[in-house]
């Protein structure tokens, strides 16, 4: 679509958004190519107790962890987990949230109110707490973390789509098309959807950053994938007891998280500026 190239060109002109894009691409490349870029790919499972807690050196670029495994290599494989969690969780939230928002926005009746109140319910409790509750109940594992995150994030999509759909309803062209007898499905597909794609994309990008932070928090609390999975949040928790001496151990995964989330936030901001300047003001489009 020429539209996509146009957007991309506009984004590329914004230096910070470009930086964001570069960071994200970097993350993807690193994650996909982890076996290639890692100096000790076997250290995802292997332990070398005799080499534990060594400072960064030629052999271990970011030092070794409490089991003697190479931190740098484990970090690269951790990128895979981060991407998987982010993409699937945000994707699932999208798949749940968008239809809910569409239906609620289209049918302006008690049912819509109900749907929106249900999403309010999920937003009423701090999302971290809800995610913790779900992850703890189901047991710490990768699928459960993704589930917990999807369940807590879909209301954001629902709300945005609801607000957009509602305002579109008042647009003259919708009313006239409906008066001409177009079916709801046709209306939605041809007229509503194209207009809500932009806010959805912006929200998805920002949502990735937020989801990754929450996933790391879950990992930090011990509710993420169990050892020896090299999840970034869990690594930070492991590193804590070896401060202040082995400070590189806690620094590295935190920086990785920072760069990743920064990438998504910058890109999201850039997309927002390009796609819909109106959104900057909106009450329903905050960060996180």
């Amino acid at each position, binding site marked *: 679509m020429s539209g996509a190239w146009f957007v991309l060109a506009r984004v590329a002109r914004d230096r910070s958004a470009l930086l964001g894009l570069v960071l994200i691409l970097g993350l993807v490349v690193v994650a996909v190519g982890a076996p290639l870029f890692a100096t000790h790919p076997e250290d995802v*499972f*292997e*332990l070398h*107790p005799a080499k*534990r807690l060594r400072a960064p050196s030629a052999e271990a670029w970011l030092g070794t962890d409490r*089991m003697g495994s190479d931190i740098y290599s484990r970090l690269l494989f951790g990128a895979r987990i981060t991407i998987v969690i982010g993409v699937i969780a945000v994707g699932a939230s999208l798949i749940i949230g968008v239809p809910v928002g569409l239906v609620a926005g289209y049918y302006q009746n008690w049912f819509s109110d109900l749907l929106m109140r249900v999403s309010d319910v999920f937003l009423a409790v701090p999302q971290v707490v809800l995610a913790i509750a779900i992850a703890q109940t189901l047991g710490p594992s990768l699928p459960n973390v993704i589930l917990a995150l999807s369940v807590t994030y879909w209301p954001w999509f629902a709300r945005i789509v609801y607000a957009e759909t509602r305002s579109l309803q008042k647009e003259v062209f919708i009313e006239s098309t409906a008066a001409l007898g177009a079916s709801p499905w046709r209306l939605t597909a041809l007229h509503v959807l194209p207009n809500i794609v932009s806010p959805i994309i912006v929200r998805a990008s920002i949502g990735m950053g937020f989801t990754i932070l929450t996933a790391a928090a879950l990992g930090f609390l011990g509710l993420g994938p169990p*050892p020896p999975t090299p999840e970034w949040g869990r690594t930070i928790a492991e590193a804590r*007891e*070896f*401060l202040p001496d082995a400070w590189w151990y806690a620094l590295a995964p935190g920086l990785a998280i920072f760069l990743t989330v920064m990438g998504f936030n910058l890109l999201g901001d850039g997309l927002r500026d390009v796609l819909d300047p109106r959104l900057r003001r909106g009450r329903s489009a905050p960060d996180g």
Partner: protein
Amino acid sequence: MSQRRSWLVVVLMVSVIALSAAPAVAQTRFVFANESPYDTMDPHAAFDVGRVAVRLNLYDGLYRWLDNPPKLEPWLAESHTVSPDGLVYTFKLRRGAKFHDGTEITGEDVRYSMERILAMKKGAAALLSTMVAPNTTKALDKSTVQFTLTKPASIFLAVVPEVHVVNAALLKKHEKDNDWGAAWLTSNDAGSGSYLLSRYDPAVGFIAKRFAGHFMPWGPKFIDEIEFRLVKEDNTRVLGMIKGDYQGTGGYLPNDQVKRLREAPNVKIIEQESMRIMMFQVNNQRAPLTDVNVRRAISYAFDYDGFNKEILGGTVERNPVPIPNNLWGVPKDVKGYTYDIDRAKAELAKAKTKVDRPLTVGYLQGFSQTEQAATVMANGLRKAGIETKLVSELWPAMVERMKKPETSPDLVVYWISTYYADPNNWIGEMFHSGQWGTFKASSFYKNPKVDDLLDTALKSTDKKVREKAYQDAARIVVEDAAGVWIYNTKYFGPWAKTLEGIRFSPIGNGQEMRWVYYAK
């Protein structure tokens, strides 16, 4: 008087009042940073090592374990006699010992205390109820109390120190709905110990002041006020010791932290051989662990040296049998298992039951050493061809799971500390089939021959007979690979350099403050 003058007078008066109302500062203070919370002040509600400071300092028992190797010393009781059939124990109490409120300690208080433990069913009750039945204890007179056991039990004497004597009259006054004063005692003091409770907050800890009227004579120097505080993070406790905020903390810190403390100028490390075994309990009742070859394979799959020497920096001793190395009853000829993946694979090949599913390895949330041990075990098992799934629980939740063979994980790693200095504390409670359901017996092991040996050891009072029985039992259990025994702890206790008189015992961990004073 002018405006100014009257103000001056007022200021002077106020300052005089304020100064005279200022509380007198205690002469010497001691602050201990503890890693578990003191959620109750009731000595009968808890039996664990984490909260031992309450029992040791605020309460007294008939006898007391002191020093290392631990010796049983007369405390509230001067002496005791045992009937020839080994069933009746009669204790003679010393005269003139008083509770904190000034009332005399009598045989009735001791009788009440025993009944209370049995009725509340917490703490040491599980152990005592196997030996003493409710309403069988008698106070013969003001200074004599008699226990009648249900069957001869040589460990009764070893466990007697856990019968902490509480002030019966005081508790009866605060009783509500037949609770034996439990609700009140959670935050109060009904003891006779060297220190008496002055302030308590379950989220913070407790403060206690010296009880000058304690029956044991005080030395010329002592500590006036002790405070035991909850400080959860290892790092905070270590930093606090270095800065001088705390003068003592728990002695089972990770090796890296001990090193930092050694280098601190105001801290000294007291090194002692303790009795605290870390091990994996293996669920002997769940296939494929019902097969002895599979269990042996697991025993060969743990990197003992890698864990003990590298990860723990050599601060622990390999302990291949389920009795601490430094206690009697250990068969000295048993070498135990080594880290040998080839032999592990060979055992698996011999096994009649195949391992066709991942084994669950349980560790304790909040205890990173157990997490590391589980990771090492998972790694070895993976090399031997067995997949694993690591699961973590908080200790109370894990205790819950370990009550039944169906809910207990395949392997669980934790420690068993010294509740009383007798091999029964370990091998007896771990491998007797009658102990299933207690947290020490999550091996769910059932071997009539071992049961017999352990019963013999419990009944006999002849140390030689008992020693042989325990040694034979240990040999069988090791042969059966009923568990994986990793190490016996050494105690590295951080204390302020200026402190003297610390008496370490594996039961108590040196937290009995009545002997301690500041030199200088």
